């Protein structure tokens, strides 16, 4: 099936499940994606009744991780008396992983959340396309067959879909949310673990320290410290982020490279074992930094050391929040 055909099917199934959920009052609201006003975007939407179901779309430009809206720090969706609403959430695999993560970390009540699962076919790499088009205004983006068609005022360019999706989508192993049927209507699966060779970062790992350092510096030094990556990440829900602490000030917020690097380094450490590889951080970055190479590396370390992948079920705590007696300790006990 072409991507275009898959999209039509996915969209239809999302709408069917959504309609069923709302009409049977399984949920009070549904969070999904709707048509954006800009060609390379979609706008998240909260719908409250069956008539609005046709606003839900799926078009490979749905890069926000909707679990972000469930996380603490976002206003809780409540009724007029302040009771938490039952929420349906359109879940591609990584959104499902994020919901599981939040449930395992006891940040949401899974009884009040129902996923609308589907087999995700990936998201377009917005910054890659924008960079190739350059300084011409893009007026329309659509998927025809297996091609991304990008149109401007008097020009058109095609891109093969499989090459122009997000790097994380290319290596994704959890396209369908991993959840029980009680939590997830539509498509779901129960995964114990994933098989990921992380071959894509072997090449990076093989570089010398200087090369790696230079690459990272070049990527990160244009960072404007806008914190969009942190705000878009469903796992970043601290009431007071470490970088905002001021009693005492742990890390400063200036644009010196040391401060920029420290922010990304520490944030990544806080995400080790928790990141759900949704790529929202890179998609939302206004200057197009690809943070995914950091997140992939961390996933590899956690998989190798603890045989753990986040978000496959709503019970297991990530390894950094948990310990088992058989955890490897040799890095602590090494003698030089």
């Amino acid at each position: 099936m072409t991507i275009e055909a898959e999209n039509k099917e996915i969209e239809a199934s999302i709408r069917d499940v959504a309609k069923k959920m709302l009409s049977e009052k399984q949920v009070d609201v549904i969070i999904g994606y709707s048509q954006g006003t800009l060609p390379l975007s979609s706008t998240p939407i909260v719908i409250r009744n069956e008539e609005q179901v046709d606003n839900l779309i799926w078009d490979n430009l749905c890069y926000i991780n909707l679990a972000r809206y469930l996380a603490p720090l976002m206003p809780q969706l409540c009724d007029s008396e302040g009771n938490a609403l039952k929420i349906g959430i359109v879940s591609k695999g990584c959104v499902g992983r994020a919901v599981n993560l939040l449930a395992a970390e006891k940040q949401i009540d899974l009884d009040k959340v129902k996923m609308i699962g589907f087999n995700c076919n990936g998201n377009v790499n917005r910054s890659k396309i924008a960079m190739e088009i350059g300084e011409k205004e893009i007026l329309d983006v659509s998927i025809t067959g297996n091609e991304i068609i990008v149109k401007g005022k008097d020009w058109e360019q095609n891109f093969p879909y499989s090459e122009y999706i997000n790097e994380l989508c290319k290596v994704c192993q959890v396209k369908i949310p991993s959840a029980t049927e009680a939590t997830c209507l539509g498509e779901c699966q129960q995964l114990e673990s994933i098989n990921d060779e992380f071959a894509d970062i072997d090449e990076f790992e093989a570089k010398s320290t200087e090369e790696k350092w230079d690459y990272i510096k070049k990527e990160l030094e244009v960072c404007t410290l806008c914190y969009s990556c942190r705000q878009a990440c469903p796992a970043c829900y601290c009431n007071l982020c470490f970088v905002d602490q001021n009693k005492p000030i742990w890390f400063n917020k200036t644009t010196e490279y040391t401060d920029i690097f420290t922010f990304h380094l520490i944030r990544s450490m806080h995400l080790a074992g928790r990141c759900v590889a949704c790529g929202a951080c890179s998609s939302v970055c206004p200057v197009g930094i690809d943070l995914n190479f950091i997140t992939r590396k961390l996933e590899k370390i956690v998989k190798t050391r603890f045989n753990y992948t986040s978000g496959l079920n709503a019970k297991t705590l990530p390894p950094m929040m948990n310990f088992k007696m058989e955890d490897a300790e040799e890095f602590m006990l090494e003698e030089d």
Partner: protein
Amino acid sequence: MSNPYIPYLTRVKSIVTENKVNDIKTVELEFKNEEDYKKFDYIPGQFAEISIIGKGECPIGIASSPTEEGTIKFTIKKMGTVTSAFHASELGDIVGVRGPCGNGWPIEEMKGKNIVVIGGGFAFSTLRSLVLYLLDEKHRKDYGDITVIYGNRDPGEVLYKDVLDEWKKRDDIKVVLTIDREAEGWTEEVGFVAPIVKKVAPSPDNAIAVVCGPPIMIKTTIAVMEELNWGPEAILNSLEARMKCGIGKCGRCNIGNKFICTDGPVFSLAELKELPDEY
């Protein structure tokens, strides 16, 4: 034209602990440079941005009156990074002062009127400044009756005991002190500020009231005063907010289109009613 972010440098001349639990201190500062002191021409109700250079800056109301010449005083409660560093200061340490900032109490408009000063807790600092100014022999005749109602949690929290004692001895000012609950040795009023204001029942005729304190005290006191027929233009508040520049540039202390640091911190109740409820 000079850089408005550079503070005047002052030295700590004296430190007085104001309350029993030792988290409120009044610090007296002497300007390093006589010229700077002359430039620091302030009126009661204004505030200054106090810097502990290296730690940060915060806005503190000026507790001294301009009639107390030579030095300026600030009463500071230990709450955050800068105030804690302030509390750790010793005699002779350098403190940066930027200001004076804000609009201050409208001492010109208050002339010829009766003044009712209502304070709660540690918000009394700019009220100390105001009352000392009004009582000064150069100004006393410009103002009518002065009534001070000052409430605290307990006797240990009462600030400026020495100054209050002086005022109680005078016959041209009425001083009513109150604490929340009965305490041993306390012979004055007992009760929250609002019911005591009701009891004292200051008249709104040709009068201006100045109300400063924690939000709940302000709310209840204003309700009582409205019952006593006080109009909203005659009740003045001094607002607080998070501030960084204190001079209307960093943007964060806005309520609607007004900045608390330059259009305030003194606002009348009538003005506040026009502004959004975001303070």
